[in-house]
């Protein structure tokens, strides 16, 4: 299986404390890979490490044939790797149009931008009607849409989503995962970190379980859904199931 | 370790007390030490507000000035003794602090900063312009040093520098002790709660506004005491002693010394008075160098001198467990 996004032996942490240790994974084009795990298992840190936001990261990251190690975020984006962080990343006092324009910040070709914006708006019709509105007036779910839509303007080859469903009402959560599916449908490699295990495993092709900064289990999403351990640990079955504290 | 600190503290105290007796020590050194103590007192007041309460006031010198003028006028015009004028000065500054605090504490950080700066400017304008009361820019001259007192049969004449030095040193120590007591009291814990998270503190039942006004008043009262000592030391209360630059200097002392550290204001005041004095030989370059020293200090000792000292102590004791939380 040829991977679009390939992560090898990545380790990272804050201030000398390792939170992710020696993680390797592959995301093929057109597929969704979901990373699940407890709080503090290092899922979000993994995405930040891949996107080169943490100093002192070790390991190698490749996108297609491009080696991404040591590139600044804007170079990563130019190479085709997009990242939607967990916390809000819209610009609340810019209009939606301006937010989209910022999504295409790295592009210079006006015609190309116009064409891609058109495509994106076709995909997210709800945004078209409100182009002149400030992004801050959108609901949380709509802002999440805008964030994802925005990344499409650079025509990424891979997208990383960090907890896209956090703080969203159930109805919106489904919409977000539908969007992720549509992304994959366009041939994009999608790496998603998520708390909502049930929903994300329903949408993903592959699931990866992280604990204490390492991968402990990787399998197809379908088989993980029926895995006892996963059910017990993450799908809300009863029992005192705390893993050891994340980082003492 | 506690015992080590206490013994060290006592030794330092004894050393400071005996300073005037050390051989042919120049009065200049005593003068500088006295001035440092006089700067340390309002800085301690501001440290309570800024370091422990998170209130960055840029008008502190105004409250030092209220105390200074209150004490000076009571002594010169009403013939009070220093000992009676001192508490009156603290009362005046404290009341003014409570009033100003109640007015401007509703404002958020930067707005609060600028509004306190505005109050500092207004107070300075009043000191400078209300000539009938304050004697205007030339200042209120003829303020006496504290009256001599008899202690165990020996007369302590504060007129003389060594005794005045001991008095201000004792006053600074007293302010330091009050600061330590407040910081460690229940009041101090509530203050610490406010500094960490105002919203949460309020939800936990801390009357945030009232606490802030209280700490503003206390900080101002301590500043007022500093003012009384300052005018008695200089024997003149002039508006130039309480201008905006002076307010900024006190903030500088607190932060350079290490805001939120008990000893920060003392270290800061020492540095602030001593470095420019040491640089007198540099003549016109003096303040150029001093400015550079400040920039470098902030760049390489962001926690201030007290933070630097704490780090050094921790390193000496070996591995430093956890970093002192907070105070960023």
């Amino acid at each position: 299986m040829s991977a679009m996004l390939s992560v090898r032996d990545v380790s990272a942490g804050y201030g000398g404390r390792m939170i992710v240790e020696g993680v390797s994974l592959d995301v093929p084009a057109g597929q969704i890979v979901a990373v699940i795990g407890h709080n503090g298992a290092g899922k979000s840190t993994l995405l930040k490490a891949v996107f080169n936001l943490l100093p002192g990261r070790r390991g190698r990251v490749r996108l297609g044939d491009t080696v991404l190690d040591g590139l600044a975020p804007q170079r990563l984006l130019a190479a085709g790797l997009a990242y939607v962080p967990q916390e809000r990343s819209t610009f609340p006092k810019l209009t939606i149009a301006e937010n989209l324009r910022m999504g295409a910040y790295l592009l210079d070709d006006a015609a190309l931008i116009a064409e891609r914006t058109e495509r994106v708006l076709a995909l997210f019709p709800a945004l078209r009607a409100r182009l002149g509105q400030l992004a801050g007036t959108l609901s949380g779910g709509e802002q999440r849409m805008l964030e994802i839509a925005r990344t499409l303007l650079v025509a990424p080859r891979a997208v990383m989503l960090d907890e896209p469903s956090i703080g969203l009402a159930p109805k919106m959560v489904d919409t977000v995962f539908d969007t992720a599916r549509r992304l994959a449908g366009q041939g994009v490699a999608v790496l998603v970190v998520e708390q909502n295990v049930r929903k994300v495993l329903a949408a993903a092709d592959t699931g990866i379980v992280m604990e204490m900064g390492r991968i402990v289990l990787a399998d197809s999403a379908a088989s993980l859904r029926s895995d006892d351990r996963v059910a017990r640990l993450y799908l809300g079955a009863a029992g005192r199931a705390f893993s050891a504290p994340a980082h003492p | 370790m506690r015992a080590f600190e206490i013994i060290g503290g006592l030794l330092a105290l004894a050393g400071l007390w005996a300073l005037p007796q050390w051989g042919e020590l120049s009065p200049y050194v005593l003068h500088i030490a006295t001035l440092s103590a006089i700067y340390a007192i309002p800085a301690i007041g501001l440290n309570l507000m800024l370091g422990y309460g998170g209130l960055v006031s840029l008008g502190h010198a105004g409250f030092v000035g209220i105390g200074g003028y209150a004490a000076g006028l009571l002594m010169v015009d009403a013939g009070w003794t220093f000992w009676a004028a001192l508490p009156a000065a603290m009362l005046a500054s404290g009341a003014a602090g409570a009033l100003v605090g109640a007015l401007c504490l509703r404002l958020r950080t930067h707005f609060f900063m600028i509004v306190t700066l505005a109050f500092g400017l207004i107070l300075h304008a009043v000191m400078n312009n209300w000539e009938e009361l304050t004697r205007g820019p030339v200042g209120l001259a003829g303020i006496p040093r504290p009256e001599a007192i008899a202690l165990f049969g020996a007369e302590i004449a504060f007129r003389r520098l060594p005794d005045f030095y001991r008095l201000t040193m004792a006053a600074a120590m007293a302010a330091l002790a009050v600061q330590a007591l407040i910081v460690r009291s229940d009041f101090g814990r509530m203050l610490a709660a406010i500094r960490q998270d105002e919203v949460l503190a309020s939800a936990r039942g801390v009357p945030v506004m009232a606490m802030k006004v209280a700490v503003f008043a206390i900080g101002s009262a301590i500043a007022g005491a500093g003012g009384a000592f300052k005018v008695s030391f200089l024997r003149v209360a002039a508006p130039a002693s309480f201008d905006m630059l002076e307010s900024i200097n006190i903030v500088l002392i607190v932060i350079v010394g290490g805001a939120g550290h008990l000893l920060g204001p003392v270290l800061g005041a020492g540095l602030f008075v001593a470095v420019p004095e040491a640089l007198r030989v540099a003549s016109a370059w003096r303040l150029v160098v001093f400015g550079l020293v400040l920039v470098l200090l902030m760049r390489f000792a962001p926690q201030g001198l007290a933070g630097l000292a704490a780090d050094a102590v921790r390193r000496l004791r070996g591995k430093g467990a956890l970093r002192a939380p907070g105070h960023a």
Partner: protein
Amino acid sequence: MTKIVRRAALSVLAVGAALAGFTPIAAAQDRVTIGVLTALSGPLAAPGRFQMNGINLAVEDANAQGGVEIGGRRYQVEIKVYDTRGNPAEGASAMQRLTTVDRVPVVIGELSSGVAAAVAPIAADNEVPFILTVPTGPNLTKANNRWLFRVNAHNDQLSQALADFISRQGWQPLAYIAWNNDAGRGGVQSMSRLLPQGWRIGYTGFFNVGEVDFSAHVTNIRNAGARAVMLFMDEEPGSLAIAQIKAAGLDVQLIGTLAMGSDRFLRRLDAQRLNGMVQYNAFPPNAAVPRIQGFSQRYRAKFNEEAHGFAAQSYDGLMVALAALRAAGSATDARRVREALTRIDHEGVTGRLRFDAEGQASPPVYVTQWCADGRRRILYPADVVADCGAG
């Protein structure tokens, strides 16, 4: 590691060497050091520059004549200059250092009356005489401080002649624009006290040091219908104030102080704008008096500008100090220097200087007026009245 240590050591040495460069290297010959307080920084640094010019010139003159002879030995004269920044506490520390570390026998200088009030008691504590050369607050020498002397005239002395002049001319209503500091407020107080009872004052406006826009005052003066405007400030804001008054087309008599003394001032303005302005002065640089002419020439030769009153006063301050040292016969005994000062009778460039019981000298005060060609005439006192070019 060693590299870092070496680099650190080198930089310490470099800084040390740099600092050492500022302190005079001790030489074989005997030296007497006079303490000087002035403002090298802060808002008073500009007048401080004139003060230092006068003092430096005095040192140069004294040493050119082989130094000063004290008790049968010749001493080279040196000065130790400390900055007070216009801050009372700074001044107090500087005075403490001069008198107890540097152990100078006499201190001269200072600009601000507020600083002087904090500094003078320290001179008294340490029993070192202190000679003021610029501050004009009348109360300074009335504080019963035996160690304080002043060579320059204070506000009441300065204002006396001009007040007479103004009242004779009938210039009322009179307006003031003054610095909101000791010089400005003190000047207004003295002048108002010395003008005849009930003299109409149309407007009094104070401005803070550093302010440069006088339009508000100009508007108010026009509204008050003032016939004359008196400016208590030094030449820098003064030039702006006059320019703004003239630009607004106000037809008023301008009245100034000695702080607006030199042709630096004139260079900022067209002579036309100054035409007719009267001012009190301690040192009319072009007067046909030998001591004045001599000083003016030496000053111009060294600094390439017209001599400033502050410079002349400060020159005299240092010369008076030297005369006292000479008379005391000691380069170290400050008590004897003080004694000598009380009896001093010095012919200075600003006039004959003797101190009264309060330590105040009474140098002559002049009233001068600017002519259309940018020169000055002397209107007062009667014995030196002179026409354009000799003021």
